[in-house]
């Protein structure tokens, strides 16, 4: 971490993170190639397709944040966690919510401690008659005091600043960024584009190592252009049949190939229906686990119907799915009541 003395130094941009083209120098690459990303993620139990691996690779090389968007439960957060695991980095997570502000995201002054410090000073002053009274001495003390209480000792770091300050390799995950207000997004911009945080009293804090940054969004609102422009964009959709089967095979212990195949195929068929909420990957995994626990070797209509409520969470969806997948009219209602 480097803390320049004043803003002039910060503005001059003499830091070590500007590359020749104005791109930040990402430091030693974390991954060798796209294939390397994919293989290592696969070892950590996360199956990435070419697009995902490609974007992660680019994010590493270009030192740019990745904005991951897509329906809930497609592995957006898991991607960041897995990348942290394979690069042996610390994962710093900022969970966004409505009303998130600077003091929760960036930093905060520990004013209780500052108050204590001031009170302690008063005690010292009262004991020392020379310091109090004399105008010049008081001014000097005040200056010293100000320097003192706005020093790092009194700074409480929050996730964004923490990710920048720490010297160890870091993956920063800003989760569900669409939940903050449009105005709050601006807080992120400085961190995302320049990997620095300006603190008026202290100066600019620069990252020594550029962290890998992932932002996830469930797309409940349009993010601002400024934010999007700074990020690489990755849309995570429901996986293809083959990938989903592989995911089930890796993540569910004790599942047979045949069962995984059937699960993936039924889920794909469900996603072609018009439902309120499509089954997500995590729900597919839950379903596969349920079937394994129940000791099911191969799913027939009867079993699918009885366990469908793991996949679908709306009554109308359950009814429609039961009807469409030809599991019998009368029984559909029974399933729905179970749910």
């Amino acid at each position, binding site marked *: 971490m480097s803390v320049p003395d004043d803003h002039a130094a910060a503005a001059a941009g003499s830091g070590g993170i500007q590359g020749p083209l104005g791109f930040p120098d990402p430091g030693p690459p974390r991954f060798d190639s796209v294939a390397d990303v994919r293989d290592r993620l696969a070892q950590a139990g996360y199956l990435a397709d070419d697009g995902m691996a490609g974007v992660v690779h680019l994010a590493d090389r270009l030192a740019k944040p990745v904005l991951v968007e897509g329906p809930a439960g497609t592995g957006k957060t898991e991607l960041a966690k897995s990348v942290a695991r394979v690069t042996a980095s610390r994962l710093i997570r900022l969970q966004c919510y409505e009303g998130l502000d600077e003091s929760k995201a960036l930093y905060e002054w520990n004013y209780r401690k500052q108050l204590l410090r001031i009170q302690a000073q008063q005690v010292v002053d009262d004991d020392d008659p020379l310091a109090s009274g004399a105008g010049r001495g008081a001014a000097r003390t005040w200056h010293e005091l100000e320097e003192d209480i706005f020093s790092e000792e009194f700074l409480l770091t929050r996730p964004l600043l923490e990710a920048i300050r720490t010297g160890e390799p870091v993956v920063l995950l800003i989760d569900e960024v669409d939940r903050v*207000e449009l105005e709050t997004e601006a807080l992120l911009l400085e961190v995302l584009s320049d990997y620095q945080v300006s603190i008026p009293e202290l100066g600019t804090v620069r990252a020594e190592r550029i962290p890998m940054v992932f932002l996830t969004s469930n*797309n409940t609102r349009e993010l601002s252009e400024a934010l999007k422009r700074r990020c690489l*964009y990755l*849309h995570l959709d429901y996986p293809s049949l083959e990938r989903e089967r592989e995911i089930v095979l890796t993540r569910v212990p004790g599942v047979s190939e045949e069962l995984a195949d059937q699960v993936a195929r*039924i889920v794909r068929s469900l996603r072609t229906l018009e439902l309120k909420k499509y089954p997500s990957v995590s729900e597919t995994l839950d379903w596969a686990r349920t079937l394994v626990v129940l000791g099911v070797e191969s799913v027939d209509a009867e079993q699918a119907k009885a366990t469908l409520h793991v996949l679908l969470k709306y009554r109308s969806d359950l009814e429609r799915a039961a009807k469409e997948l030809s599991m019998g009219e009368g029984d559909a209602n029974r399933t729905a009541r179970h749910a």
Partner: protein
Amino acid sequence: MLDVLTGFVTELRAAGLPVSMTEAIDAAEAVHHIPLEDRQALKYALAATLVKSSAHWKAFETAFEVYFAVRGPQHGGDGTDGLDEEAPGDLDRDDEATGEGAGLGRGRGGGGGEPLSAEELAEMLFRALKSANTAQVAALARQAVTRYAGMEPGRPVGGTYYLYRTLRNLDLDGLLQRLLEAARQEAGGELTPLEERLATDEFRSRLDRLRRELEDEIRRRLVADRGAEALARSLRKPLPEDVDFMHATREELTALRRAIHPLTRKLAVRLARKRRHGRKGALDFRSTVRHSLSTGGVPVDPKFRYPRPAKPEIFVVADISGSVASFARFTLHLVYAIASQFSKVRSFVFIDGIDEVTPFFEGVDDVAEALHRINTEADVVWVDGHSDYGHALSVFWERWGEEITPRTSVLLLGDARNNYHASQAWVLQEMRHRARHVYWLNPEPRAYWGTGDSILDEYGVHCDAVYECRNLRQLEQFVSELA
């Protein structure tokens, strides 16, 4: 490479995608870091840097396929020499050019030296699809295009017609039936309904892949024939949010319906948020004092009461005659999806008679079903089933006018094409006195207003505002202003 890239960015912008200068630079930088011979990697690198919304993916993909089509010197020759003469060796060459061809396909193409007959082609396609041999399907798709599309070099077309011709000859529905039959036999006679459904979905997805292969192939040849820029121009389509309701094709309507669901969710979130944060209420003295305790009694952080949300009542009065039906449908869809934001929504539909349809929406999960019931059950025809705004409005006023209160906003949806009946514009004048707002949404372009039998001007003077509302973007904007 840089030329191609700038051309590509220009094309994206022309297609309506917002690509900024920095994004273009990022794309150029990203290209350095990927192996250029890897077309997929290039595609994802460009997508990650240039496309920042999943709704724009389709437009990007089309442009990408055109600009970075797989091209080889032989392919260039294809277009000029005429496609039919090239047929015998075609299979071979394509394989080399794309580098993904099947050994199988090459063997046959080279060994036979003759174009496959129609029956052979169909049979091989059937077998390739059955065994899910993607490489062979791709090779056969090329063969099929050569044989059936009948492409004429130099014609300024986007290729839809070629695709249609090829598909008609291949008879995909028949193939699906054959595949299912084969699956049934393999299972030993009968499939359970669930298995049947799964098999159907599987074969459908394989046939979809074939269809995509055909499209790609046709596009490749068109690029070779006419050049990327010209083709990109004819393939350009409006983005989903810009599609005109009145002139949307069937696929576009399906896409719109799909787009409207996330849109309503977004709108609802935004409105709820606006309500909570839009205005602050009066100072909450008690809470302020309570919070000042942590700063030693100094009220550093004043607290405010939450404002009481003003939930407007909405009366939607929609023309559902043939000319504007699809527009009315979308508006009803949208209004109902965010009904939680309004204290009361009542809807009325008319052609020349008028009927209240609010009950159709009550307790229904599926808006589409409610709309279907409206179209079949509502009593909206009075004389001849041609729009008569005058009669509909006066009946509306007679039967429901009393219920309009100063909290009510009235939305009138329609093109005001009155078939030269009496306008009865006084109804709107009265309505405006009683209601909070009266808005008119017209799905016609502004330039057509007041031409022919459109009497929007007569109605418009009595409305608070008249909006042109031709696509999702405009509709969304209106609804967010309303709430």
